[in-house]
């Protein structure tokens, strides 16, 4: 086993480009591990923590640090050579000059505005330590900002948002993963039909679920504005949510509003609801994880789940009374659980999905549901790497994504976890979310199915069967081909729900019936054995 590091000075690459390159190197024969990172303090620390980097390094934040571990020196040299070759064809190299001078590619927001003076939105996805500075510059130069980057401090978020307020500009984020503006999907967004429903959300996957369900229910979306997950905290004060409500209130293309967030700080919730009452457009409010008031309140319609929010908004847009939710359909799955198989394990890539699932599952089962992102702190999982009882895991949480691609892009972490959950004799049902749309994996079902089949085979060897329940968050126009994704999962025996809430209803029903039916069957099996 041999490990070596290389530094490529001043060769900036974005994190996704480096992840792709790391993955390509890791796939070379004889290469155990390969990691290419911008040598920021955080990234270098991480490489040390993982044990990949042991020596001191004088790499600077603007340098690419390459670390490769391989089974032979030859494989090591091959991988390092390949890495250096890939980085040598610099994205920043000036284009070869032919007849006249090539226009200089913009290197800054100011330069981009000089080239395109009509610009009105900066989509910022630079590493977190530079993100606040880029957002400030963009705002001062008169651009609205979608701040995809995370790792921005609360102080910086407050500073950014007060500047935006002073300049009458919108800030989406930080940590805003998705948005739709004028029907255009930004960052991790689904391809949703245009329509009259405008959304403002502090939750990325929450917005994706609502907008894609609206599409599925036959209505469309005018805009979906993200606010960033901390916007509705006391410290930030809901600045982006309030600005978003105002913007959609004045937008002729928006007839119905949907507001979605985890339960805000009480004072902020009051402000948001007061602002929403003033605008007179029918508005659906969904504070995921809080039981909503039963009655509608003026123009405000409360939804309990993301699915309900989409359903109510769709009927308001179609100008008919909100349809009742259809009762959970009988799941087309015959469980043959062994004795002791009773637990549900939710393995999620979407944070809000996990949050909503732990809450809905607890209510549906009438039992404790543990999570690394629980609605109530008392259900916090001490070690997110190990499940016990009913567990819902957000695999997109910081502890899983530090130095690793997000599970919506790279399925390896979740696939490993599926196999481990399947080893657990208590596990009856595994629930999975499958997020489609721009930015997500191009073919998620193909990534998941081998792990699902392996898990099923392993369970079978132990005379068990595990129910897999999943739902797809996406639309028919998403690049992944929704019907094909569904078919691939169904062929692997996965039961599909329409939404997160639907998947949880199905999972709970299967788990309950399994629990009820299991003793006699497994008892008889045991007698036979």
């Amino acid at each position: 086993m041999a490990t070596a590091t290389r530094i490529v000075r001043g060769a900036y690459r974005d994190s996704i480009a480096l992840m792709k390159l790391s993955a390509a190197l890791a796939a070379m024969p004889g290469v155990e591990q390969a990691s290419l990172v911008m040598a920021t303090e955080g990234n270098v620390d991480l490489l040390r923590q993982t044990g990949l980097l042991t020596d001191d390094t004088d790499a600077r934040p603007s340098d690419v640090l390459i670390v490769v571990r391989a089974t032979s020196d030859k494989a090591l040299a091959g991988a390092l050579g390949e890495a250096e070759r890939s980085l040598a064809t610099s994205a920043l190299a000036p284009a070869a000059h032919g007849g006249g001078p090539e226009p200089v590619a913009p290197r800054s927001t100011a330069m981009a505005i000089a080239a395109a003076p009509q610009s009105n939105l900066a989509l910022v996805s630079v590493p977190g330590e530079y993100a606040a500075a880029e957002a400030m510059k963009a705002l001062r130069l008169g651009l609205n900002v979608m701040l995809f980057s995370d790792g921005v401090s609360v102080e910086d978020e407050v500073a950014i948002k007060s500047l935006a307020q002073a300049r009458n500009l919108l800030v989406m984020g930080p940590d805003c993963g998705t948005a739709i503006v004028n029907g255009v999907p930004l960052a991790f967004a689904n391809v949703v039909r245009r329509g009259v429903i405008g959304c403002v959300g502090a939750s990325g996957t929450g917005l994706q679920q609502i907008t894609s369900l609206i599409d599925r229910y036959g209505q469309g979306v005018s805009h979906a504005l993200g606010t960033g997950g901390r916007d509705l905290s006391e410290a930030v004060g809901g600045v982006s949510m309030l600005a978003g409500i105002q913007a959609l209130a004045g937008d002729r293309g928006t007839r119905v509003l949907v507001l979605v967030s985890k339960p805000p700080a009480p004072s902020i919730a009051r402000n948001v609801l007061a602002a929403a009452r003033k605008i007179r457009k029918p508005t659906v409010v969904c504070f995921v994880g809080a039981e909503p008031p039963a009655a509608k309140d003026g123009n405000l319609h409360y939804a309990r789940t993301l699915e309900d929010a989409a359903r109510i908004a769709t009927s308001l847009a179609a100008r008919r009374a909100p349809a009742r939710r259809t009762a959970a359909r009988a799941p087309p799955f015959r469980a043959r659980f062994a004795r002791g198989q009773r637990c549900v394990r939710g393995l999620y890539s979407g944070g809000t999905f996990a949050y909503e699932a732990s809450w809905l599952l607890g209510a549906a089962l009438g039992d404790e549901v543990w999570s690394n992102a629980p609605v109530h702190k008392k259900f916090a999982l001490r070690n997110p790497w190990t499940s016990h009882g009913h567990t819902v895991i957000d695999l997109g949480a910081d502890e899983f994504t530090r130095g690793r691609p997000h599970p919506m892009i790279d399925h390896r972490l979740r696939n490993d976890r599926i196999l481990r959950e399947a080893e657990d004799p208590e596990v009856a049902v595994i629930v999975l979310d499958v997020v489609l749309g721009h930015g997500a994996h191009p073919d998620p079902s193909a990534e998941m199915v081998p792990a699902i089949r392996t898990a099923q085979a392993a369970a079978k060897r132990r005379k068990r069967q595990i129910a897999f329940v999943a739902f797809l968050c996406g639309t028919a126009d998403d690049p992944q081909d929704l019907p094909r994704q569904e078919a691939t999962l169904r062929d692997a025996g996965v039961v599909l729900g329409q939404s997160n809430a639907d998947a949880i209803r199905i999972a709970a029903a299967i788990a309950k019936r399994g629990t009820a039916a299991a003793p006699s069957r497994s008892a008889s099996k045991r007698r036979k054995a």
Partner: protein
Amino acid sequence: MSTLIGNPLSVVNLGIDAFADPIAAAGVPVTRVQWSPPAGGDAQVVRALANLVGNPVVEDANRQAFAAYLDAEPVLEGIGIAREVIRGMGSRTLLHSGPPIGWDTMCGPMQGAVIGAAMLEGWARDAEEAREIAGRGEISFAPCHHHGAVGPMAGVISPSMPVWIVRNARHGNMTYSNLNEGLGKVLRYGANSPEVLDRLRWMASHLAPVVEAALHAIGPIELKPLMARALHMGDEMHNRNVAASGLLMKQLVLGALKAGISARDAADALEFVVGNDFFFLNVSMAACKNMLDAARGVPGSSMVTTMARNGVEFGIRVSGTGDTWFTAPAPMVEGLYFSGYTRADAARDIGDSAITETAGIGGFAMAAAPAIVQFVGGTPQLALANTMEMLHITLGQNAAFTIPQLEFAGTPAGIDVRKVVDTGILPAINTGIAHREPGVGQVGAGLTRAPAECFTHAVVALAGLVTGGAPR
């Protein structure tokens, strides 16, 4: 109401490049920024820059500073004796190029020039004695730039030397430069042999009086129109001054005749001018400084008013940060060497002549001077690209100096430290290469870039002044 909702979307994408693809596919304009961390990711600089970009205080200050630079009207008034016309120059003072430096740390060519000047002034009989008095601190040194002056290469101006006098007819400020000695063994490259000192004495006793009398006879020469014509004739007035020298020569011939100077004296003086294609360089530099000094001292302005090197350090000064120099080690020059010389012979970048680039000519107007691109190791395409690239780090363009090759666009002018740091595009400088040993002279010419550190230091200092030191 925000400009976002209900208006056509137009996106600037910075960070993950793939995010631009679906936006472009949706038919929405998207500009892809080739982003990299500013200033190599230095957190203090990144934050300081974020406080300055788009800051209205800075924008207003820059408008004022840039307008003063544009409005300046440098005129060549005549020739004076340094100690008589340069304010604050003591009788034992030598001025030198670049930011402040002491005798012990001066590079070879500058020490050679100091030795020559000490002998020229009669402070020392020979080189050894000159070294001794310099080492004992008996000569006071000051940057030319601290006294309204500029000098190419070592830039040494001694009290008895004749100097060009340039006055800003618009704002009244005065600037000065010494007279160009020609090529070969000359003081500005550190030579101090008797022939060098004899030439300097002749320039003071014969050349300067003729030129002064000629200028007196025809009256002050407006320099911007002359320089604008020279740009159209293929000069960028840093490394190529052949056209501008000719235009000045025309005036001097007429002036000498009008002044009634004897044919023999006029012929001697003008023969020297005819033989020196760099004769105008020092006038160009004094004119550039004259325009830039008009833009100095505007609180909050991020416009660069000085770029100069002393052979050890490269230094810049910025309008909004007063007289503070922001320095970094002087770079080596990439270029072509005269036969017999190599990079190993080269001194680091030296001289006040980068004042031309600071004022928007020289390397910034390289597109206008295709004839010299080979001399500095480039191609005509590179010359155009250099000028176009500088547009991205400047506050604007100078309509007084236009470039035929770029459809008579004004030269990029008014370097903005914010833009330099934000884009990572460094000011391009055309320059000569000095031998690192004193007295050998020029060994080549080439291109260099101002060091990034000067600009990052300036950004931090300016942000401290503009935001009162508090992060905002």
